[in-house]
């Protein structure tokens, strides 16, 4: 069988699927509602993200202000752990 014949059969067979129509196709009004709902949801998620970020940043600032030494120790420990993890992972990959 030649490539052209395969391509032609493929084209003809796939064109049959154009006859199928989506059963749940929304109307224009439904689509507008969908657009509005999706945008509202996006806004809500953005607000939640900002609130969580604000709480997180406030917590860190308060922590730095009240226990600066503990904060520095935590930071140093996290950095060392991170670097250590990367080194171990690379060694395991090479093995």
């Amino acid at each position: 069988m030649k490539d052209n014949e395969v391509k032609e059969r493929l084209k003809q067979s796939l064109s049959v699927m154009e006859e199928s129509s989506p059963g749940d196709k929304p109307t224009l009004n439904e689509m507008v509602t969908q657009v509005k709902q999706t945008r509202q949801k996006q806004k809500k998620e953005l607000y939640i993200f900002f609130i969580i970020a604000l709480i997180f940043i406030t917590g860190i600032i308060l922590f730095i202000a009240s226990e600066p030494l503990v904060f520095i120790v935590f930071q140093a420990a996290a950095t060392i752990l991170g670097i250590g993890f990367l080194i171990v992972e690379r060694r395991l990959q090479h093995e």
Partner: protein
Amino acid sequence: MDETEERIKRAKKGDDEALAAVLLEQYDFVYHYLLKLTMHPAVAEDMTQETMIRAIERFKQYNPKKAKVSTWLIQIGTNLWTDEKRKEKRAKKFTNQHQLEWELRHHSSDDWLIVTSALEKLKEIHRVPVILKHYYGYSYEDIAAICKVPIGTVKSRLNIALKCLREELSNEGQ
């Protein structure tokens, strides 16, 4: 400027009705493309709706100078399908062919069943470019952009896909 371009322009400015009209205009096109990928009408419908929601969320990122809205939607749909495949959430292969057969039962020829069955056996990385190239006639550059791979990879995937289809269809005829 044609009507679609005008709508896209208004949609970019935040006009909800214009965006709804732009997406609705492409709804059938996206559905038929996803039907060819998934071979499953219900999954294709779900994914078309997901594609539309994703498009609403990201419409600000769409650049009309870079691609047609249909190409952009196909890119979103392809990504969604690839993600779904990766997660293996929708692996109900057995009912697919039957549902599609039922939907299109009025069609006289059954050659399309043989061909779509052969197409279904292809891996998704081969199925996507073969449909985009040989059915929709997209250029190698467009397919590379949609699949996010180099043009050379697209060409090699197309060669492999055609070879597999040729073998599969030749076997079918014997």
